[in-house]
């Protein structure tokens, strides 16, 4: 199994430990990652409103780089996933495609429409498979009460995996259960973490994050597990801000899917750089 790996800007800076965990996890599973190290930012939500045509073209450039390797793109961030799928759907219009390929011609690239984008949990569940994951588990997460937190963009506007309409997903639960953990249901699991307004309105973003943390805590979870680097940063690094805004103490460790799987598959806390978390996962007694 090989993928063109796109860690995303958050994975390259504020959530560098998740990027690191993803590489270790892939190595452990025999998945080869070829990093798209000349790829640009996906534009997130800003790019599409501030300069949509540049955003479209730069994402097409990234996808063309993956096509050049003959590989699908692997993402660890929900919004990177959305931004690429948005690009792919816009480029299904022949006019847009011609315009973008004219631009990419200036740097010797062409977008063919072949590369698919795969979020990490899709690769774990659909390519590796739950049965295989279970077999490879070295440190089953027995008794770990983990609250799945999907975030937005793997569910909305269109579900990235699972057969349902994105309203009652259970693939994150399936993944955590395959790894031996206990998935705790809670009402905010498909809501927003608040990331996209943290830079412009931190108090509001932190209040939105607090609702998620409150929901997980009230359900009796010991930690939260998410497929997205942005959700991870919001709920972990901004947990203090969320505590301040809601006048509640959470102290909930947040784990990215790459970390949950990494722990279950026997990687060490040092391997996973868990000490980079703001809310230490050590209290979970796993590593």
């Amino acid at each position, binding site marked *: 199994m090989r993928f063109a790996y796109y860690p995303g*800007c958050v994975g*390259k*800076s*504020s959530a*560098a*430990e998740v990027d690191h965990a993803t590489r270790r996890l892939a190595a452990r599973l025999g998945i080869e990652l070829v990093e798209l*190290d*000349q*790829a*640009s*930012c996906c*534009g*997130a*939500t*800003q*790019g*599409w*409103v*501030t*300069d*949509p*045509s*540049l955003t*479209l*073209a*730069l994402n097409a*450039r990234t996808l063309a780089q993956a096509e050049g390797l003959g590989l699908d793109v692997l993402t660890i961030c929900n919004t990177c996933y959305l931004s690429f799928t948005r690009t792919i759907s816009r480029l299904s219009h022949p006019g847009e495609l011609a*315009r973008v390929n*004219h*631009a990419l*011609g*200036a*740097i010797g690239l062409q977008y063919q429409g072949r590369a698919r984008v795969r979020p990490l949990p899709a690769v774990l569940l659909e390519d590796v498979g739950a049965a295989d994951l279970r077999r490879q588990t070295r440190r089953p997460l027995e008794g770990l009460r983990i609250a799945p937190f999907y975030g*937005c*963009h793997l*569910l*909305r*506007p269109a579900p990235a995996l699972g057969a349902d309409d*994105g*309203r009652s997903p259970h693939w994150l639960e399936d993944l955590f259960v395959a790894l031996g953990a206990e998935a705790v249901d809670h*009402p905010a699991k498909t*809501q*927003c973490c*608040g*990331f*996209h*307004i943290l*830079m*412009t*309105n931190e108090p*509001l973003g932190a209040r*939105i994050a607090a*609702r998620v943390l409150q929901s997980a805590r009230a359900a009796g979870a010991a930690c939260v597990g998410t497929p997205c680097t942005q959700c991870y940063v919001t709920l972990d*690094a901004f947990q*203090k*801000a969320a505590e301040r805004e809601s006048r509640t103490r959470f102290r909930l460790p947040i784990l990215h899917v790459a970390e949950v799987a990494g722990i279950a598959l026997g990687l060490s806390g040092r391997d996973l750089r868990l*000490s*980079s*978390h*703001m809310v230490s996962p050590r209290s979970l007694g796993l590593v």
Partner: protein
Amino acid sequence: MGAGQVVARIFSYDPAEGREPRYETYEIPRAREMRVLDALIYVVDQLGASLAFRWFCGVRRCGACGVQVNGRPVLACWEPAAEQMVIEPLPNLPIVRDLVVDHSGYDRVVDRLFPYLDRRDPYQSFPEPLTHGAMRIPHDLMQCVQCLICVAACPSWRIDGEGFQGPAALVQAGRFALDPRDALDRSSALARGLYDCCSCYACNDACPMGIDVLGHAVEPLRAACIKRGLGEEARHSHAFLDLIREAGVVTAPSLLLKTRRAGALARAGEGLKLARKGKFSLASPISTAEEIRKVQERMEER
């Protein structure tokens, strides 16, 4: 519970009575193609319950019948009844009584956004020379029945109507502002709150009319405000794109430095701790500014 029954736990509250809200449970015989609205009507007409709820058209037109069913905001007249239902008023809005919520905060927000077509040019002829392409977005927004289900689903909306206008009001603003015949500049009224949308698509997902609220209202209106440089957030957006053009990648510290908000890093005393954990590392720029410039030039050619 028999197989042919619907069990509904319905929220009951009258602020005038001064007692705590409670839930009343009703058993309702299941009918074919039964909707949530049918269950509510049965509870009042056949069981004699005192229950306040709104409806008028019964066919997804008037927008009056929004309620929350099993945690999801829906139109009562457009939602199949489930065997077990918890029926509550739409969240995020003040409760008038039982399932009836107060829409007036929304009305006030809409009023401030000039919800009418303000044309400079007089009618040229009938029919007007409009193309489908030019009317595609306003036409989608015209489907809005103002049910406020998107508002109930929106994490950024605050009941007081201060700050963020909320998705439904932005749909009304967009319906006119994005109409090719409209000539009124609403951007300064909009810029006061519209950047608080966190792009979660909860509105799109919840809208019973299938309106692309984020893509057809919030984003185009926001794009217009950014273009005009309105608000600190516009500076943030331009800085974000400048970073992509210069370095290819965007990180929190580079963005804050660029928007001259570095002080925000240290605020609340968490900055240092975050920095120690490597949360403020500057991702190494990719060496492709030249490539990006070439791509941009060509994109701007036509």
